[in-house]
């Protein structure tokens, strides 16, 4: 399960982070040492243990089906990096 340059390229692509040779070299080293560190978990017997996703022991919190107009268009778009008053604008997707 060692991490290679290909692996780094692949996970960088999956996480949408641009990579170059230097970055990949550094990451290979770091990621491999982290993986080696977590490998200790293989020692643990976990056969019939249920995974623990959350330490909260209660029913899921639900809300009523009611519309609360909380934000208007201007507020929502106010942090947008572009100036358009109606839409978020992004470079075109090449389909």
């Amino acid at each position: 399960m060692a991490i290679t340059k290909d692996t780094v390229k692949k996970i960088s692509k999956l996480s949408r982070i641009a990579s170059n040779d230097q970055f990949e070299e550094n990451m290979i080293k770091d990621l491999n040492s982290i993986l080696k560190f977590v490998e200790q978990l293989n020692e643990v017997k976990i056969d019939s243990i249920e995974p623990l996703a959350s330490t909260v022991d209660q029913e899921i919190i639900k809300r009523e089906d009611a519309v609360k107009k909380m934000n208007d268009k201007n507020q929502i778009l106010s942090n947008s990096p572009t100036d358009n008053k109606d839409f978020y604008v992004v470079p075109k997707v090449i389909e």
Partner: protein
Amino acid sequence: MSDKQFDYYLKGEKGDYEVVIGLEVHAQVLSEAKLFSSSSTKFGSEPNSQVSLVDAAMPGMLPVINKFCIEQAVKTGLGLNAKINNLSKFDRKNYFYADLPQGYQISQFKYPIVGEGKVILDMPYGTKQVGIERLHLEQDAGKSMHDQDPQHSFVDLNRSGIALMEIVSKPDLRSPSEVGEYIKKLRSIMRYLNTCDGNMEQGSLRADVNVSVRIKGSKELGTRCEIKNVNSIKFMQQAIEYEARRQIELIEEGKVVDQETRLFDTKKQETRSMRSKEDAHDYRYFPDPDLLPLNLEDKYIESLKKDLPELPDEKKQRLISQFNLSNYEASVIISDQAVSSYYEEVAKVSDYKLAATWLMGDLFAMLNKEGKEITESPVSAKNLAKMINLIKDGTISGKIAKTVFEEMIKNDEDPSKIVEDKGLKQTSDPKEIENVIDKVITANQDKVEQYRSGKDKLFGFFVGQVMKEMKGKGNPQMINNILKDKLK
């Protein structure tokens, strides 16, 4: 019982091919607010005017589930005769796209809210059972517009976060017409339950279509391709036809069908491959740590079950067994929620059988001609029922009723008033009828002779003449009886 056989097989050189289809239908839940936020779900609003901080995935925002959406999903599951799971969980489906603000969609992967179920279709060759694999809740994405500007795409997040029910069928469908019936059935069930408005033009119902082919009789499944996001039945059917033939061609040429995701080009009526990214399928599903598991008690599920309205299939059975409607009549009536309501309103205060005849005959013909939906019918259910009762109690004949009906189309006037005003009451006075019959017989002695010597068909001539004399207001039953007698 029809003796038609299923016959959708495509001919190839190697033999006949069977088409295997599975659908993943995305149905927008009818609710006021979104699945995990309190924004409105109203269609057609100004862009980005129904977006909250949670929908825009601002830093620190968290999802809280809408309890009504849960109810809608359970009701739909019950309508699909499916198992409602007591425990379900929410997972994150991780991928990047401009209309997916969080960078993940909250969905249900391992533990969906609804399990296996089934749907029954009425095909010309008999009933067909289509298995449902599961139904789960998930967030809808926003909308990206790519053709407004050569360099840029525009994103509207109004739709982002609206609740969707994803209904996954088993690969039990075998033809474009079965697919059409399946979608109509799902739509009808959800409309009955008021859990989805099934409005495909507005995007509240769309499907991903999985198509594969195999030699008829083969038990192995072929490689399937997924045609994404088809939003009309017609397009689904065209896409399936094109795709099946495309795959057959490849196979016959000895080539391999690649498993891939395709889009249906509605203009060219062909499917084409989406730009395939090998990472496209690694969604890295994991349980959403911002949400806790959903536990549904049997008590809760039972209470929803109890309050469900009568579903189309049950209603159809009831119409056939209780009221003697034909399979065809019953199918047509239940196929549409609005039709079914209208029918019920008429039938329950008049006569189930006559209501069916009038609905499917004159009323539909009129609606077709005027290009109107039943919800816009110029003749109200109330008045149609009254008219039927006038036939039942002998005030008017079926024939006269047609005239009354024509009048009602104009103003939806009370039929009793029309009958009164136009003097359309049928004559049921035996003496009067006898007189007219005598007159007609006297004036047509030659024909009487011909009838008596065996020309039975002439009976209709006499009836016609009597009716003409009586200006159509003669009680047909009575005319028949007295005439028969007199012509003996």
